């Protein structure tokens, strides 16, 4: 007979579940409201979502550091809190983009907002656990929601994008579970800290290394997919193109942050165990990714697609930090994404503002470069704002991404990888070209006949303007808050104890 389990609620530490429960509850509330009264305006749901996420954020910030809960399934360390904060802030910033002056299909569903919150809950679970099962389930919850959200945009491209993303995601899920199986075989456990201990104990056994590396390889493949590293990145451009601009911008930040946190937990474990192969593999992937994505971005004709490649490249850039596995590098990851988030928010919001239902400039693309031609002459402020975002993405100081960039490069230098820093630098130079291309179109070309205030500011509304203004403010003023931000992140990373000192 099994003995009954006696466990007190206090021991369960249910509070660790609070943030996710809030998000899930939020989703259910939205569904319930819809059941009670149909055809409510999207603004209600948007505001409701923001409020719920705000409460969620409060709960997250209020969490105790380094707590485990619920039979050690939950792990609330600094990284978990940090990443949840980023995820929540990003969600709160991107969701108001639903409030366009024109109606778009997905926002006519209350379910959109419910799925959105379930997705956030999924990500939150994913980052606040070191149990392979919970990570898997959280990841899948989030991913499935995300596929749906993409498809809800409801046009050819969005379905195609969702299907591509979905199918490749399924393959990645296969890789993930195979990798997990191998690690389970080695360690008899699905908890990362126990796996680490087991590997440490068994590393010297004959024939063990191939299993360790094989397991790491499969896991790397699956996360490389999530992080869109070469050659697992092929979904990203198509999905960005097919998804609506807010969602695309969202995808370039939130799922990546979540995946980075998990990668950090998994791969830095290997690296800390002294398994160099993982480090080399990640470095190779990172370098190849940033380079290939950059050169492919060079030849894009569509701004959104270019931004897709650019965010692949940025992901490669940040991935290098995982290989470095130092506190500074880990700090850099969050700093980078924390800052990148605002700039990307701005850039995609600009695209969203200028989004049309008809493709008037190009047969296929929504945002071809020509669309912004000569913008400075017609809408100087819009052009300057967009240019600011582009410069920030290119890493021109003192705009936000620059600080993340130098911090990561500095981390590479500190870890003795000067060549990596140089590669990063040169890649930034290549990248500058395609950001510049948009600036060239906006500032240096003459307006085409089809560009005018109405076509560019097609979708504009007060909330969108507010978001844009906020993004500009944060991008330009980054200099003034980087210091406290950095301090906070460093402290959190140190608490988590991930990475070498």
């Amino acid at each position, binding site marked *: *007979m*099994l003995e009954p*389990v006696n*466990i007190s609620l206090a021991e369960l530490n249910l509070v660790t579940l609070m943030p996710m429960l809030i998000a899930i509850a939020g989703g259910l509330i939205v*569904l319930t409201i819809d059941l009670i009264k*149909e*055809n409510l305006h999207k603004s209600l749901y948007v505001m409701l979502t923001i409020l719920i996420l705000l409460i969620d954020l409060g709960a997250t910030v209020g969490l105790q550091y380094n707590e485990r809960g*619920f*039979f050690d*399934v939950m792990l609330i360390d600094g990284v978990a809190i940090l990443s949840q904060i980023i995820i929540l802030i990003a969600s709160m910033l991107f969701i108001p983009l639903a409030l366009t002056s*024109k*109606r*778009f*299909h997905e926002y*006519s*569903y209350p*379910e959109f907002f*419910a*799925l959105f919150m*379930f*997705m956030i*809950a*999924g990500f939150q*679970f994913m980052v606040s656990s070191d*149990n392979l*099962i*919970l990570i898997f*389930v*959280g990841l*899948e*919850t989030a991913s*499935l*929601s995300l*596929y*749906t959200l993409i*498809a*809800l*945009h*409801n*046009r*050819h491209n*969005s379905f195609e994008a969702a299907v591509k993303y979905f199918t490749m995601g399924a393959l990645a899920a296969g890789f993930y579970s195979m990798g997990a199986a*191998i690690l389970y*075989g*080695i*360690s*008899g*456990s699905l908890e990362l800290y*126990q796996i680490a201990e087991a590997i440490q*104990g*068994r590393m010297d*056994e*004959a*024939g*063990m290394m*191939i*299993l360790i590396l*094989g397991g790491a390889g499969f896991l790397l493949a699956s996360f490389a997919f999530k992080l869109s590293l070469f050659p697992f990145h092929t979904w990203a451009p198509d999905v960005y193109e097919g998804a*609506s601009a807010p969602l695309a911008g969202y995808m370039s930040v939130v799922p990546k942050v979540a995946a980075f946190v998990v990668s950090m937990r998994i791969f830095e474990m290997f690296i800390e165990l002294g398994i160099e192969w993982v480090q080399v593999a990640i470095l190779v992937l990172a370098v190849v990714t940033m380079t290939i994505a950059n050169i492919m971005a060079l030849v894009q004709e569509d701004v959104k697609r270019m931004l897709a490649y650019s965010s692949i490249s940025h992901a490669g850039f940040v991935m290098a930090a995982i290989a470095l596995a130092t506190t500074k590098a880990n700090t850099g990851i969050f700093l980078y994404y924390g800052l990148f988030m605002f700039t990307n928010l701005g850039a995609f919001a600009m695209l969203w503002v200028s989004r049309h*239902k008809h493709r008037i400039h190009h047969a296929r693309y929504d945002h071809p470069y020509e669309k912004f031609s000569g913008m400075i002459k017609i809408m100087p402020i819009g052009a300057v704002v967009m240019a600011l975002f582009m410069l920030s993405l290119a890493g021109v100081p003192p705009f936000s991404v620059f600080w993340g960039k130098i911090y990561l490069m500095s981390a590479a230098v500190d870890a003795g990888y000067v060549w990596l820093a140089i590669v990063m630098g040169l890649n930034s130079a290549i990248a500058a070209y395609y950001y510049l291309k948009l600036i060239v179109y906006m500032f240096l070309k003459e307006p085409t006949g089809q560009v005018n205030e109405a076509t560019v500011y097609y979708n504009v509304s007060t909330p969108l303007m507010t978001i844009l203004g906020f993004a500009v403010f944060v991008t330009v003023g980054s200099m003034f808050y980087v210091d406290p931000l950095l301090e906070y992140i460093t402290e959190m990373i140190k608490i988590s104890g991930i990475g070498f000192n």
Partner: protein
Amino acid sequence: MYEVIAFYIFAISTTILFLITVMSKNVLYAMTALAAGMVMISGFFFLLGADFLGVVQLIVYVGAVMALYAFAMMFFDATKDIKEKHQNPALVFLLGGLMALVFVVMFSAPIIGENVQALYPIVDGVGNAQAVGMVLFTKYLVPFEVAAVMLLVAMIAGIILAGKKMDYSLTECEVSDQELEDEILKGEAK
């Protein structure tokens, strides 16, 4: 001894069935083979003492999933043979073969460690379902609940994606916004 025989029977039959799934040109054959293969997989579960899992496999996979596929197939009219253009079939098999080879090499190593302690040991005399229930509702309660959310998500997704409202698109419209909105509102009113 019967375990050996059973293993080989299951092994050979799953391999063949899955190969059919992967190679067949006919969707119906492929699906049938997949369903049969899954049944055979459940055999392994029983062999390995995971009775509960075996049952779940049968019910969920063979019962639910395959039923879903079957419904879907009716929608797609998949009775015809599908045409697939393979640019370089050899390469695909080469990759697959290589993958298999790596697995063989990898799993030839003694994976099971003597010192590894089972965290959630299978206790003699306790039924598998009972044991599984015990773990599932203690240790894995959170994942279980998340899985519930996941299924909810899947359900909502399935409903709205396949729903009638998706037939009109507010995003990609040939007619003007206003007309379309009116039309949709009318449709909803009905």
